């Protein structure tokens, strides 16, 4: 894998070290911990290892010294050759010590003698003494497990009562033990053998050494890659291992690939302005869908008496949508022109489905506003309750800067230039007004007919009435729009960002696998990485990553990606806890979960005041949650301390989230995508604002 990730790491570590220094430091600092991990994994696998280590435990130090005093000649250099990581302790031993403190010393001594014996036994040719040792070994092993099998251990256990003085009893016991267990080893040849054996690496040492070498090999192979860093999460999940991306990436070539133009837009506008039909037309004319599919839909649509809906049905696929003739949910799709790849999101226009539309807007760079130019229809969509206004207001509040306005159905107005200019003037006035606040140079007006396709993808200039127009086609216009925010100027910038991906869709593919789709709003994500789901706090490895239905190793800011995960890695093994609008983040993300936060908001036109305590629906990106204002901190241009806000006011308020599910947000100053909020109540957008500071952080 990548220099990419390494670089990111380097940045994290403060850029202080050079590349070589870093790799050295890496292997030097991480190796021990890796080894101790390994050792830990071997924990409790045998009395031998455990007992050996016990003698190294600092807490047993005094006892060791005492022992040496008692047995000066029997076991010289007891601990010296044993070079195992000192932190390891057999859990078995620990437990035993707790249960029977007074007799534990015996056991330890016993086990120590055992631990010394096996090497000597195996190293020499078999002798009768070995047989005896083996018998004694089994006896002692049993006694270690608190099962007094032979009389000796029974005696050992019972004798302690005879000596009221602890010290005395211990000495007595030690002598007894020496006589019993060390009778055969206390002769010179054996001691020499034991010494020799202890100077050689123990079996454990051998294993550890082999593993160490294997790891070094791996590390060399990975060359300059980040090591597997183990992390402890704050939650119940025991150990989250950061995983490496599956594929090594050459940074330069990968990034040059992403310089390749890509844009996403969301189609918004009043109900029946022709949004879905326009989308269908674009898909058909760019060759994304073939004539066969369209012809089939035309037949179906005509059968149900809705001939003009055929193109829209490319996107309106559910029974409900088709029978009602309205779009209910967003539908994202990609298509290619000669120069660029587009991700287009078709949003519903109906007032009731504004939440879905918000979800669409949060995934797009550009808004394509479709307005119906038919006399009366434009006006209907443009009055206050019309969605033309609400949608543009929302788009602006959610951070969209560029708007392409398609003046649709102009063929029904005989391609009247006067009508086009009239609508253009009205819309410009509204969109650049103080309430909405778009820049005039970022508004692009294009006259089209979505149903016939004139001036959508191509303009054959065959209509004499339309000869007055010599601007670009709709697609041409979209291609020309520059989106500075999604342009990646440098690698450094990308690497310095932490990953932010807001889930737009969750689909269970198989019972063991699920897929999420969403837009990477910051940073980058690679297949194989482990990411954190917020607010559920699940950490999962990205199994596969695809952009525009094509498998990719990496995705960067601005792209809409599909990620697949294993359901089994979720805490509850079920996707029910996840919700649209949840975030996918780096393991060490700065995004926090809150139950309340401070925001500065601007209220729009409202029928009713926004009271302290009034519940509303809070939108952030594509997440929505029920919330209420708990405190009004400050109202701009108002002296009196009030508990309600009316239309067109600016205020600083404290917002609290209703319900148990915490809400991930970030300060606007730190994260633009997560710092914007929109407030809706009773089907109308009442306010928008930015997150100022977080409170009650979980």
């Amino acid at each position, binding site marked *: 894998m990548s220099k990419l990730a390494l670089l990111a790491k380097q940045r994290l570590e403060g850029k202080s070290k050079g590349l070589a220094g870093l790799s050295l430091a890496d292997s030097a600092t991480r190796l021990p911990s890796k080894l101790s991990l390994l050792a830990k994994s071997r924990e409790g696998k045998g009395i031998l290892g455990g007992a050996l280590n016990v003698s190294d435990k600092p807490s047993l130090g005094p006892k060791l010294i005492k022992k040496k005093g008692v047995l000066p000649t029997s076991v010289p250099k007891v601990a010296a050759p044993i070079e195992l990581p000192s932190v390891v302790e057999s859990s078995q031993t620990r437990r035993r010590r707790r249960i029977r403190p007074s007799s534990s010393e015996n056991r330890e001594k016993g086990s120590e003698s055992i631990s010394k014996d096996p090497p000597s036994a195996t190293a020499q040719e078999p002798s009768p003494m070995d047989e005896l040792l083996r018998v004694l070994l089994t006896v002692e092993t049993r006694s270690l497990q608190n099962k007094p099998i032979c009389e000796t251990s029974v005696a050992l256990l019972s004798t302690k009562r005879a000596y009221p003085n602890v010290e005395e009893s211990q000495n007595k016991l030690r002598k007894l033990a020496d006589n019993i267990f060390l009778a055969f080893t206390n002769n010179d040849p054996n001691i020499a053998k034991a010494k020799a054996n202890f100077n050689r690496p123990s079996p454990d040492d051998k294993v550890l050494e082999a593993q160490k070498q294997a790891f070094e090999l791996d590390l060399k192979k990975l060359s300059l890659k980040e090591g597997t860093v183990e992390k402890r999460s704050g939650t119940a999940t025991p150990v989250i291992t950061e995983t490496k991306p599956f594929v090594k990436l050459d940074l330069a070539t990968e990034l040059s690939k992403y310089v390749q133009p890509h844009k996403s837009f969301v189609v918004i506008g009043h109900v029946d302005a022709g949004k879905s039909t326009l989308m269908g037309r674009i898909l058909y004319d760019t060759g994304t869908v073939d004539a066969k599919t369209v012809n089939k839909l035309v037949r179906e649509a005509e059968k149900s008496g809705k001939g003009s809906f055929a193109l829209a049905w490319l996107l309106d*696929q559910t029974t409900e949508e088709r029978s009602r003739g309205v779009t209910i949910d967003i539908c994202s799709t990609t298509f290619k022109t000669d120069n660029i790849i587009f991700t287009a999101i078709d949003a519903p226009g109906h007032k009731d489905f504004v939440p879905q539309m918000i979800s669409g807007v949060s995934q797009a760079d550009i808004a394509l506003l479709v307005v119906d130019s038919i006399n009366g229809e434009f006006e209907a969509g443009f009055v206050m309750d019309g969605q033309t206004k609400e949608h543009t207001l929302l788009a602006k509040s959610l951070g969209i800067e560029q708007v392409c306005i398609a003046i649709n159905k102009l063929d029904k107005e005989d391609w009247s230039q006067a009508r086009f200019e009239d609508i253009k003037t009205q819309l410009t006035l509204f969109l650049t007004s103080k309430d909405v606040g778009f820049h005039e140079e970022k508004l692009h007006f294009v006259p089209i007919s979505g149903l016939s396709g004139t001036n959508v993808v191509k303009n054959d200039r065959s209509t004499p009435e339309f000869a007055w127009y010599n601007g670009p086609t709709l697609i041409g216009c979209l291609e020309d729009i520059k989106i500075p925010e999604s342009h990646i100027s440098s690698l450094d910038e990308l690497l310095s960002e932490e990953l932010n991906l807001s889930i737009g869709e969750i689909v269970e593919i198989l019972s063991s696998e699920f897929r999420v789709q969403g837009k990477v709003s910051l940073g980058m994500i690679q297949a194989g990485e482990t990411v954190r789901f917020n607010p559920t706090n699940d950490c999962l490895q990205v199994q596969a990553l695809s952009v525009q239905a094509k498998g990719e190793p990496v995705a960067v800011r601005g792209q809409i990606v599909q990620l697949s995960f294993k359901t089994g890695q979720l805490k509850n093994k079920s996707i029910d806890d996840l919700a649209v609008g949840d975030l996918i983040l780096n393991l060490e993300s700065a995004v926090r979960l809150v139950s309340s936060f401070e925001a500065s908001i601007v209220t729009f036109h409202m029928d009713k005041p926004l*009271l302290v305590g009034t519940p509303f*629906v809070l939108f952030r990106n594509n997440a929505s949650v029920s919330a209420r204002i708990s405190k009004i901190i400050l109202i701009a241009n108002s002296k009196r301390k009030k508990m309600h806000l009316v239309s067109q006011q600016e205020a600083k308020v404290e917002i609290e989230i209703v319900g148990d599910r915490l809400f991930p947000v970030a300060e606007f100053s730190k994260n633009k995508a997560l710092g914007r909020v929109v407030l809706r109540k009773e089907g109308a957008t009442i306010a928008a604002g930015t997150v100022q500071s977080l409170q009650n952080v979980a």
Partner: protein
Amino acid sequence: MKLLDKTIALEKDKSGSLSLIPQDKEDLWQLYNLIQKGDMVELLTVRNVKKTEGGKAERVHVHLKLAVESVDYVPSDEVMRIRGKTVEQNEYVPNQSYHTAEVQLNKKLKINKAEWDDISYGIVLAASSVEKKAEVGAVVLQEGVAHLCLVTDTMTVLRNKIEKAIPRKSRDAGGSAHDKSIAKFLDMVQATVSRNFDFEKLKVIILASPGFTAAALQKAILDAAVKEDNKVILKNKSKLLVVHSSTGYLQGLEEVLKDPLVQKNLNDTKFAREAAVFEDFQRNLNEDDDRAWYGPKEVAKAVELGAVKYLMLTDSLFRSDDIAARKHYIALSEEVKNLGGEVFVFSTLHESGEQLERLTGAAVLLKYPMNLEDDDEDEE
């Protein structure tokens, strides 16, 4: 609630006692609003008693008379408890011993108050009136989430919440997965509705959602009833009321109660009226026409000036331990009534009451605009 007997000297100092039998969960809430610190309550309760010294404690039913120190109500468990000291000795319990009694349904309860004011006596009369109480079932839903609520005069109870992840349609896979899970979701809601709602007893059952989900649910309920031959539902199918709400969150319920269609069906119920009055108040507040005010000081002043059309108070104000505060609000209510205004005591277990509570708990809508902010009384 059943009123058994009363010995209240209404003419004199308004002291006296009365006996009640709480019959349903709502009565417990009424009792919670009725019983106050300082009252004397006689009831049958359970106490752990050691019959012999050092022996095992036994649960015995005892009849106790308590001097109330605190009352407690847990809406989620629908449990009401009275804590106090005994004032009479009996076989098991000595005098002046603390006891916490859980009020049991269908058991007699005798309350003695030093003063039965209008509010507390009003609660008794309202709760014991023979008129059939209106209870409404409501399902507030959107694709993927449904809330089943019961709305009574004094409380909104969330009975069930059903959630299901609904996959989005996608251009590659089509909409069939979406259609299937919607059907499954509606079936879940439908089954929960017929299990939890008593179609005979409820006045109406409101189905509210944005878009077409509520209509689809109505169809699902009726289809299932036909299939299972559920006569109760089929007989009462006209009680199903499909209305529009902007959201499937629980807050949509408040919106629904203001819907003209619902109002027509519930015209005489207390909570629908309250919701409408509060709505009225909010509209005036938004217009900033100096007719809507909130806050204890403003309210007191408005009453003093005799300009109040609606006085809105939360029941929590009357639960206050501060006798002076309680008396103050009772005096305000009486004053408003005498001058031809209307008084509404909002239940804090309803959404509108909860909102009012956060808005200081007291608000007024005036007959004519008035500035209550300044000291000089400039009337128009």
